[in-house]
């Protein structure tokens, strides 16, 4: 190994070697190709895990394939059926509903809590540690835990409501189920937003706030005009990541309603179409539509984020 390294060293020290006799290894670690060599493993993984399923899906989205019979070409039929299916649009709309509701609540709550915690106080480390706990638990375990707490008859939430004189609520009825599931996700993920925003608040230069205090600005004005604009990149990161994760919401559904009670979200529908009904063609076309939607939304957000981060650096 050390001999090998010495060879490369001399190669690097004397780049004006026109002999043209470079071994493959030297070419790969040479100036020109080094950056590509580094991502060869990634490209391989991407080819296997992204290109292959995508091409496979795209191919079978143009086919009629119900598992029992061999696939037959069907053109755009699957897409037409899906786009005409009101259930698909309903699932899409509900996913959007959960998305907007969850991210909205998370951002507002997290902003309040992080502004509150943006100071030095006794026991701050253990308190932050406690708040971090929900974030790292399995989402399935979280949803089953809440499913248990929210049981109609013996759930601790309803018993508590009864105790203070409020009526019990059927948390997993069609009326509430979607929001109950969103709340479970919010409970688990708000700590994420809290810590991202808190880190942002801590990194803001202090003199900015002092200047505004000297000018006699109110705390409210300072928040809107100084704090919030400076947190925009972080808020964008939160929205981007949460959008990506929420569109793929699946585990909380499995742990609670299993798509019943009007909670069939996009990914659950895709799952049911492919692994319960074994309609691979239709499931594939839904997946492609869902992928394109996600890609477009996230590409726009990602570009904005890169722009903001880039302008910060320069």
């Amino acid at each position, binding site marked *: 190994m050390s001999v090998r390294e010495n060879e490369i060293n001399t190669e690097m020290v004397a780049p004006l070697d026109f002999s043209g006799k470079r071994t493959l290894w030297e070419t790969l670690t040479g100036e020109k190709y080094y950056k590509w060599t580094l991502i060869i493993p990634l490209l391989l993984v991407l080819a296997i895990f992204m290109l292959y399923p995508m091409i496979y899906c795209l191919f079978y989205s143009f086919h009629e394939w119900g598992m029992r019979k061999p696939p037959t070409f069907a053109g755009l039929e699957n897409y037409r059926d899906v786009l005409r299916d009101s259930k698909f649009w309903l699932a899409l709309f509900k996913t959007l509903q959960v998305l907007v509701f969850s991210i909205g609540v998370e951002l507002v709550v997290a902003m309040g809590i992080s502004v509150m915690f943006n100071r030095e106080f006794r026991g701050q480390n253990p308190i932050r540690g406690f708040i971090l706990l929900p974030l790292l638990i399995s989402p399935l375990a979280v949803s089953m835990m809440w499913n248990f707490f929210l049981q109609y008859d*013996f759930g601790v939430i309803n018993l508590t409501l009864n105790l203070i004189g409020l009526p019990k609520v059927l948390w997993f009825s069609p009326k509430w189920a979607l929001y109950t599931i969103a709340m479970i996700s919010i409970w688990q993920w708000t700590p994420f937003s809290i810590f991202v925003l808190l880190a942002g608040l801590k990194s803001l230069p202090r003199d900015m706030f002092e200047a505004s205090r000297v000018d006699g600005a109110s705390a409210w004005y300072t928040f809107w005009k100084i704090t919030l604009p400076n947190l925009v990149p*972080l808020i964008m990161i939160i929205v981007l990541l949460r959008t990506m994760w929420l569109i793929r919401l699946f585990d909380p559904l499995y742990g609670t309603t299993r798509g019943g009670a009007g909670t069939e979200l996009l990914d659950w529908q895709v799952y049911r179409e*492919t692994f319960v009904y074994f309609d691979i063609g239709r499931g594939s076309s839904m997946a492609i539509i869902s992928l394109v939607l996600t890609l477009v939304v996230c590409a726009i957000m990602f570009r904005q984020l890169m722009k903001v981060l880039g302008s910060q650096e320069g």
Partner: protein
Amino acid sequence: MKIKSVAFWLGTIIVLLIFVLPLMWMYLTSIKANADIYSTSISKLFVFSPTLENYHHLFFKTGFLREFWNTLVVAVSSTALVMAVSLPAAYSFSRYNTGHGHLLFITISTRMFPGAVAAIPFFFGFKALGLLDTTFGLTILYLYFNMSFAIFLLYGFFREIPVELEQAAMIDGHSQLAIFRKVIFPLIKPGAAITAIFCLVFSWNEFLFAFLFTRTAARTVNIGLSTFWTATGMNWGAMAGCTAAAIMPTLAAAWFMQRYIIRGLTFGAVKG
């Protein structure tokens, strides 16, 4: 000043109750007998005779220990794989802007594909290769599952390392590989550790792929957890015991590595 401080602590207590109380309640439930769990009387919420029945059931009557071991094997080996692929790739992205951001976006977008459908081609592929219901098969799937997040995280950490250090080493006549090993790696180690923690936790918590790709031999704790839901309804006591035991490792990780995890959550977009 005093009112302000009282309000602050009141707020803190409420926040703590919201996030911690449910977890404590879970552990409390896990030492209750089923008769007490299904009781609708308020007093039974707190007054009950504690029992280890649920844990006894979990450890001796279910495959929990096996599932725990499977999950550990898959989480550790997939994390090692993810790091081997992500470290050089993220370095290339951050230092040379390889692919002008497009390739980075494509990498991150791997997670936007609906999991259930990405699973179909793999299901048939794995079936042909005999990888269904094996820890090795699940390990490979988790490479795909964690890679995009790992690269995104590491990308941020690499950006924090000043280019000047490398240039200095380059002038000293070190090769690219030597620079990566001697200059970059020591600096990226904390960031890499944080990324590895996240990969471990995410692998531990993953459900969909484990659910679709394992049956008995390679079952993970999450799958074990989901089996308490039978046709006759949920066995809540056993479920509580299993949840309590299954989330223990990640809770411990959250508690003991909170500083690093919090740092990782900010993606290097914020320094400090």
